[in-house]
Every structure is written in C-alpha cells, then in structure tokens.
C-alpha cells in the first residue's frame, strides 16, 4: 500500500459531524431515550467490602405495588469458576457474571446484590430497601500492602500463588538479557518505590441503558458504550439470549476513556425487561459510578535502573503491583510492557503482579497500566540523568529505542518515531524558554516519555453511494475520539469529493458487520482500512461503469476529482462522468453502488510521546499548578489535526488531575469517601494552561494513510513529567500520587532550596 500524499482533505481540520448536535443539546445520549410503557430499574448494592451472602429474600419487594420484576444472581447465566476461563476480548466471563451480580460473595461496597424494576424510580429504590439480605461479614483488604499480608482476607479462596491461597491472581514478566550481569556493569544504580492511588476515568455521562424485550424475545438495547458488539455479546452470554436476537444500538457517548469497554447494567436491565414484559430504563447515579464502576488500579511499583558513567543504561528492573479490585484483571500488561519500551536496554526484567482487593473491579483507562509504569520508570530516569549530570532529554536520546530495537514485550520495533519526539521536545520553544519569575512561588520544569502498544483487530464498514451521488459510510465502533470526522476526510479524499458529501454513521449490531470495541487506540487505524478498501472497490465499480458507457477498457479509466476520466487522450476523448452522473445511471447499469469490507486488521504500530511540563508551587499552601505544558507525539499521520490535538490535550488534562489531586479516598469501613466530583477532584478548565501540541508525523508504512493510534499515549508520560517538574521546583522528590496540597506542604516542612535551577 502506498501512503497518500498531496491531500486535499486528509490533514484538514474539517467540521466535525457530531459538533452541531452536541453544542445544541440535540445529541441523544443513553439517558435521553424513552419508550411507551417504560419502567425503571434500580440496583441493590452491598454495603460491605467483603461478605458471604447467606440468603436473599425478595418477597417483600415483589409485593410492593408498582414493582414489576426482581432479579438476583440466580437469573444471570453462571460461568463456573472451575470450568476455566471463557474469554470475551480481555474479559473473563467468569468474573463478568459475578461483577454484574454478586453470586456467593459480595466483594466490594457497591457490588450489585439484586435489582428491581418498578413503575417509578422511587418505587424501585424503595423496593430495593425491602430486599432482605443475610450477610456473613468477612475481613477485608483494600490497599495492596494489606491484600498481600500473610494473614490477609482472601477474596478468591480457589486462587493459589506459590502454593498458598493468595490475592495475587496473576503475574507476567518481560525479560531480556541478564539483569544481574547488567547491574554489575553500572556505575550508577538508582532504585525507588512509588505508589499511586486508584483514579476514575471521570467520564461525565453515567452508565445508562434502555432495553426492550419483545414478546417474541427480540431484544433492543439502547446504551452508551465503547462497543455495541461487546454489549451484545456480553448481554447474550449473561442472559442466554442469542446474539441474532439482540440489537444493540449505540447512543452518543459522553466519555468512556476505557471505562465503557465492559457492561454493568445491560444484562440486568435485559432480564428485568424480559421478566416484566416492559421496557426497562436504568441510569446510574454519579455515586454508583464512583462506587461500582471500574476506575484504574492503585499501584505499588519498584524500579531500579543502572547506567554507566557515559549515560548508557545497562540494566533495569521493574516490579509493578496493581490493584485489580474484586476480580482478576488489572492492567499489568500495560505497566510491565510499556514502561521501559522507549529505551534500548540490554538487560531488563519487568514484572507485573495482579492483586485482588475489596474495591470495584478495575476497567480500562486510557493506555491501561502504562501511565502507572511510566510514572515510576520516568521518575527514576530523571534521577539517573541528574546523577549523571546529563540533560534528561539527552539521556533519553542516548538510550532511545529505534528501528530494530528488540522490545522486552516481544516485537522488534519497525520504523518508530520515539527519537523524533525527544528531538522535537528539545527543539521546542518551551524547552528553550526561561522558567520566569514565579513572584514568590517556585517554578520548575520536568520531562517524561511514554509508549502505548496501539491495536488493530476486527472492523467492518459499508460504503454506499446514494441515488443522488453522495456517500454514506457505516462503521461499527462508537466514536469517542473523532473517527467519524477522520473517516469523512479519508473517504472524501479517495473519492475526490467535498467531505461534506460524506455522511459517516455508527451502525448498530444488526446493520453493520462485527467490529471490535473502541479501545486500544485502534478505531481510526482499523476502520480507515476497511473504509479505504470499500471505497477502492466502489471506485473500481465506477471506473468499470464509465468504461462500459465509453466502450473502452476499464484500465483506460481513471478516477480523479470525483469523476471518471479517460487515463489519456489515447484512451479516447470523453467528457468526465461525475459521481452524481454515475449514480443516476446506476439502476440501468447493474444496480446500486456500494461495497463493504470486513477485516481483522493487522500492522498497528505503537506510539511514543515526550512531554515537557512547567509547574509553579505555592510553598505556603502546598499548591502545585501546571503553568505550561507541551506534548510531543509521533502521531503517524494526523488525518484530522484538530482531533489529534484534542486527544493529546485531553490525555494531558487527565494526567494532571491524576498527578495533583485525583484519588479514591476510603473510610475506615472500607467505603469510598469521595464518590462525587466535589471531592474527587478532576481538573476544571481554569486549573490547566493551554496545552501545546507538537505532532511528529512518522507514517505507519503498513497503513494506507499512515495512521497510528493517538488516543492513549498522551496520558502515559504526564504524572512523571509533573513529578519531575515539582522536583525541579522544590528540590524534593515525591514518590507517591497525588501530589495534593496537604502532601506537598508536609514535605515542605523540611528545609527549602532557595529557588529553582
């Protein structure tokens, strides 16, 4: 495949197709749907972090006037633990069935125990209170250290680690060379331990769905998710309704960031709808979102890096313990696999440990695990560079991975753009600018890099030419990062028409072919492949039809600027035939023009970023603020630069929140103490500077437009960049997140350095 150059639409900041609906409030999110006869579902949740469920008596709830159906775990299809894993994507259905409704044990406060559907939300809530649950309350553990104690409460008794019942439910390692030998060669070795708190993705739209099960069993789901096919498959597996009978219609999504790659409500609402014969709507409150849906892991990481005097890293060792929450499956792959990937390190051991504890099951969050690993590694990189008296970017350049580097997680890197990101950061106006006077506040600058795998996978598309010669493209993944705008640019480019003539929609599960969920920064990479191939098929049809009209060979027809032309005067002298003209003639020439392609796409290249961050610290109040930020990233090819920059800026904003204020706080009773946006402090606009973006474009040669995923890399370096900047300002290092005001002030009680360097 050749990379398209000299583009008219690719690389343009075209008007986003969903923009008008979203700014006018017309966009339909999951909670905006309604149906005649609709009733409301509510979930009864465990008040305990850990408890055996001895019995559930729903009889009083069922008798309450207005109650139409009650569901417990008995109604959910069981996937017995002893029968082994049943995987759907990265999710094991044994854990999913227990996560949507507790079976024998409640494993976190907020764990669903039963659900009720009633004519009003208030009646459903009252009915939940009438359900009698007999719990045998058990000891519990939330923090990693507590979960790993020899006498810790064990969540899953069947699980053994080193032959003993354990909360360590998984381990992986990436290995290269021999670290013992490697560290012997080192002149400088620095080892540090870091902790991070669980943080939520913070999507503004709570989980919501409306589900109708008709008398004949045909089921329709309207919900907000990152994959309507994932919703269909999980609902099918957990309810026993076959996939051909479930139509999952994706609503506009009000944020996901990975958190909507699993289901919570849909199987429950489906069963309530099936039992009651009424459409059932469920909308989580913010509190439910914060208590019971997946944040990402809290972590404890130890990173050791050894380098020679001339700045060459000779060995590194990372151990990353990540909280999985109630069920196995923390993102240790991202932590262990991504964190050292920017560097060519001959001797490396990177280990991940998956630790269960009594909090909600983690869900994916933007480059799952990678920001946690990078935080530890990039902070130690900063210390090693300082010990070597090297500029931290030069130190990274000296050790940068490049084409041919064997990554510890497996691949030999193809042409990658990591070095270019470091060079661009070094050459940026930001890196050259003086820090300036903080007017009594201390300023500092930090840098950090990051990597994310990116992904390909299954995608389907159907491209149809309308009767009036315009274009409708249907793809199968919810648009959470600009895929519709990107696809419109690409399709318009290929057809040589104005992008406004291309309408891109997201199909439901019964109208477009299987498409894997929106995650892994895969969507534009994968969907533009199938759209490109579909469009190429259409262009072939258009050329054939023009050739037939002109009575020449199809090979003698070229497609350019939205019309068929003879390739040269030798092929014949004909007026061009436009898309509109050929569409008009379609009925007489073999019928409608359209093509669909379905592929398991391959060839996704990983992405690298390097960030520069300036902070200013009010040393009397302990408040650190980011005052300037530049995100550099190898974006492959920026199909829609406005959206790419939006991805970079969004990731940085989330990382700044993670670094400075966001954290789950627990009460002594093991419950989340800050289940709302007042005390779970995500940044607001005024907390952030304008975030500068430098897009480095090293096209992916295995993709027709050179696309690389861009959505997840931007979160990876941020916490380390902020931490390194705070060190530079204060001369004191922080080894724990968040660096919130009380924690900063506590540290500052030690003597201060005069000013930033």
């Amino acid at each position, binding site marked *: 495949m050749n990379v398209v150059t000299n583009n008219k639409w690719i690389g343009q900041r075209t008007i986003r197709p969903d923009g008008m609906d979203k700014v006018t409030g017309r966009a339909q999110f999951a909670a905006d749907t309604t149906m005649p006869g609709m009733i409301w579902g509510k979930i009864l949740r465990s008040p305990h972090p850990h408890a055996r469920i001895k019995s559930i008596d729903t009889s009083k709830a069922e008798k309450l006037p207005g109650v139409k159906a009650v569901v417990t775990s008995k109604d959910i299809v069981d996937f017995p633990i002893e029968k082994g894993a049943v995987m759907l994507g990265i999710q094991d259905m044994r854990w999913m069935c227990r996560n949507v409704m507790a079976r024998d044990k409640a494993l976190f406060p907020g764990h669903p125990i039963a659900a009720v559907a009633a004519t*009003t939300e208030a009646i459903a809530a009252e009915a939940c209170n009438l359900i009698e649950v007999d719990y045998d309350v058990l000891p519990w553990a939330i923090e990693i250290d507590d979960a790993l104690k020899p006498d810790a409460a064990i969540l899953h008794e069947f699980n053994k680690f080193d032959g003993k019942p354990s909360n360590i439910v998984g381990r992986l390692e990436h290995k290269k060379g021999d670290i013992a030998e490697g560290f012997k060669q080192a002149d400088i070795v620095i080892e540090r331990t870091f902790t991070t708190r669980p943080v939520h993705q913070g999507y503004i739209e709570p989980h919501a769905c409306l589900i109708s099960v008709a008398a004949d069993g045909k089921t329709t789901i309207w919900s907000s998710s990152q994959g309507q096919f994932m919703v269909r498959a999980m609902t099918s597996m957990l309810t026993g309704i076959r996939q051909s009978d479930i139509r999952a219609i994706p609503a506009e999504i009000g944020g996901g960031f990975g958190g909507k790659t699993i289901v919570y409500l849909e199987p429950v609402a489906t069963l309530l709808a099936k039992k009651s014969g009424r459409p059932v709507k469920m909308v989580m409150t913010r509190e439910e979102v914060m208590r019971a849906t997946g944040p990402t892991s809290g972590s404890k990481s130890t990173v050791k890096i050894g380098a020679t005097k001339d700045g060459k890293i000779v060995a590194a060792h990372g151990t990353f313990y990540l909280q999985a929450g109630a069920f196995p499956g923390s993102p240790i792959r991202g932590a262990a696999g991504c964190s050292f990937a920017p560097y060519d390190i001959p001797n490396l051991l990177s280990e991940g440990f998956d630790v269960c504890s009594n909090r909600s099951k983690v869900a994916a969050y933007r480059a799952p695990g990678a920001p946690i690993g990078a935080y530890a590694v990039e902070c130690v990189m900063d210390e090693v560079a300082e010990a070597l008296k090297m500029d931290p970017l030069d130190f990274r350049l000296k050790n940068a991975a490049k084409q041919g580097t064997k990554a510890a997680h497996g691949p030999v890197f193809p042409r990658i753009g990591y070095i270019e990101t470091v060079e661009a950061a070094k050459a940026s106006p930001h890196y050259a600018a003086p820090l300036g006077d903080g007017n009594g506040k201390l300023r500092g600058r930090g840098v950090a890099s990051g990597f994310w795998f990116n992904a390909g996978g299954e995608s389907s598309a159907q491209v149809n030419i309308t009767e009036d010669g315009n274009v409708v493209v249907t793809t199968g993944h919810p648009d959470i990062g600009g895929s519709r705008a990107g696809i419109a640019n690409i399709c318009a480019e290929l057809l040589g028409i104005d992008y406004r003539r291309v309408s891109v929609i997201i199909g439901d599960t019964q109208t477009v072919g299987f498409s894997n969920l929106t995650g892994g920064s895969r969507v534009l990479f994968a969907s533009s492949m199938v759209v490109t191939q579909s469009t190429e098929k259409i262009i072939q049809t258009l050329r054939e039809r023009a050739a037939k009209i002109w009575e020449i060979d199809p090979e003698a027809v070229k497609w350019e600027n939205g019309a068929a032309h003879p390739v040269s005067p030798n092929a014949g002298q004909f007026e061009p035939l436009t898309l509109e003209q050929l569409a008009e003639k379609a009925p007489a020439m073999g019928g409608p023009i359209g093509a669909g392609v379905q592929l398991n796409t391959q060839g996704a290249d990983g992405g690298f970023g390097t960030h520069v961050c300036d902070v200013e610290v009010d040393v009397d109040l302990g*408040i650190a603020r980011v005052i300037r930020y530049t995100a550099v990233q190898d974006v492959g090819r920026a199909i829609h630069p406005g959206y790419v920059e939006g991805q970079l800026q969004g990731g940085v904003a989330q990382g700044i929140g993670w670094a400075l204020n966001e954290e789950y706080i627990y009460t002594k009773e093991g419950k989340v103490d800050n289940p709302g946006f007042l*005390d779970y402090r995500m940044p607001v606009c005024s907390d952030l500077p304008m975030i500068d973006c430098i897009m480095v474009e090293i096209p992916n040669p295995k993709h027709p437009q050179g696309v690389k995923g861009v959505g997840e890399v931007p979160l990876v370096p941020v916490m380390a960049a902020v931490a390194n900047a705070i060190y530079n300002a204060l001369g004191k290092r922080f080894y724990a997140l968040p660096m919130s*005001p*009380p924690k900063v*002030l506590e540290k500052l009680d030690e003597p201060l350095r005069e000013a930033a360097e």
Partner: protein
Amino acid sequence: MTELRYLAPDTLDEAIGAFAAAGSAARILAGGTDLLVQMRSGVLKPGVIVDIKKIPEMTAIEETADGGFRIGAAVSGMALAEHKTFGKVWPGVLEAINLIGSKQVQGRASAGGNLCNGSPAGDSVPAMVAAGAVVTVQGPNGRREMKVEDVPAGPGRTNLKPGEILVSFSLPPRPPGSSNAYLRMIPRTEMDIAVVGCGVSLTMNDGIVTAARVGLGAVAPTVLLVEDAAKALIGSKLDDAALARAASACSAACRPIDDKRGTIAYRTKVAGVLLKRTAAIAAKRAQGN
C-alpha cells in the same frame, strides 16, 4: 410514597405560617443549590418546600440612609455582583459570595442559603462574620436580630428557632479607610469547597489598623470569629510581627478534623497563611478608601 408540597408565598407572614405549620418536614428554598442537591442524593426528603423568592424583601438589596446595606436572604450572588455600589463598599463579602459554586450556580445561590445550610465551609460566612453583619430573622413570635456568627450551631445546624426564617443581612456603614477581603484555600482553582476560608475586615488610619475583624471557615464545627487575631492587628501597621501574631491566633483558634479535604496539620497552618494574605489585600484596599 411520600408527597412533596411546594409553596411560593408572596408575603413573609404566609411563608412563616406555612413553614411553622409543617414543622421539621419543611425546608426553605432560596436558590436551592444546596437543598436540591441534598434531595437528589437522598440526604433530605422534605414534605414541604417553601420558596421565598416571591417575597420582595427577600430579594431586595437596599442601601440604608446611614450608608449601610440590607441584603435579602435570597439575593443571588449574580444580582449582588451587578449592584452598583455594594462591591465597592464590601469587596470581601462580594468576592466570598461569588465563590459559592460556579458561574451557573451564582445565578441562584444566596448568602442566606449559604448561612442556613450550616456548613462550616460556606464561603460567604467568614466574610460576613468579618464584616460584622447582623441578620434579621422572623418567626411565629416576631422579628429578632442575631449576629451572623451566632447563627451556625454545628455542621448542618443553626440556632434559628422552629418556624424562623432568615430574612436579611444588615451590614454597617463604613468609616473612611475601611475595606475587607476574603480568601479561601481550595485544591482546584474554582468549583470547589473551602479547605480553609478567611475573611478580614479592616479600618486604617495613617497606616495603622484602628479596627479589625477576622472570620475563619472550615477549621471548626462552625465558622469562627477570631477576636485574638483582630486584637493582634489593631494598633499595628500590619508589620510582620503583628501579622505573625494574628496568624498564630488563627492557627490557635482552629479545631479542625482530619478528613478527605485536608488534615488537621494542614488546615491549622493554612489558616495562618491565609490570614496574612487576606489582611494584606484588605489593607491595600483600605488605603485606597
């Protein structure tokens, strides 16, 4: 299911009648920015809501003949911000009220609601305490006046008697050389709740403080009037030693808790830091008056 009755009387007497009759099931609705949130989260389930915004006195801003102000309990932050002179005379009170919630919330939120919500972290309260504001309350037994600092009884509780409604705030006339300021510590830059709030009101003559009041929020079960801090400032030129004494007095007055918003150590230290910064702003403003 419990029913909810909503009343919006035109007169104070009607409101008091309805409010007193409904007893503990009733709640007063001014802007509703606390009440509605508490209802939605299930914390409160009132049987009767008495909306006071239709009562003219409740939404009036009046400049009194002596140069003071009378602010209706339901006056929104935005209405006060748009008043021609209030912000010039009481910039610290206005900036405190305008910190409640967000821009959107400001269209509804009132100082009266902020006070009656009983939160020790309410932003307007330390500023009102520093300003020496007096509130008028009216109930079945008639009208009475209270000092603002006497209204809160503890988190979520006030010293208003059953059936009493907060009617207005009275702020005294200002001698020349007076001004005031309010600062709060929040982890974010806006849309947040005070970890510590500090209001300072000063009168200065030839660079010397002749009168001072200090209010501190979020460091004790109720907002505090810190008289020792005021004493440390009065008679001084706001020199470092005086400010340090006043800051120490603020820290000493703190009886905070460790909670999700801050630690005891943090709040105690920050109370002193904010006193210094707030006094500096108030002094700068005062010297221009």
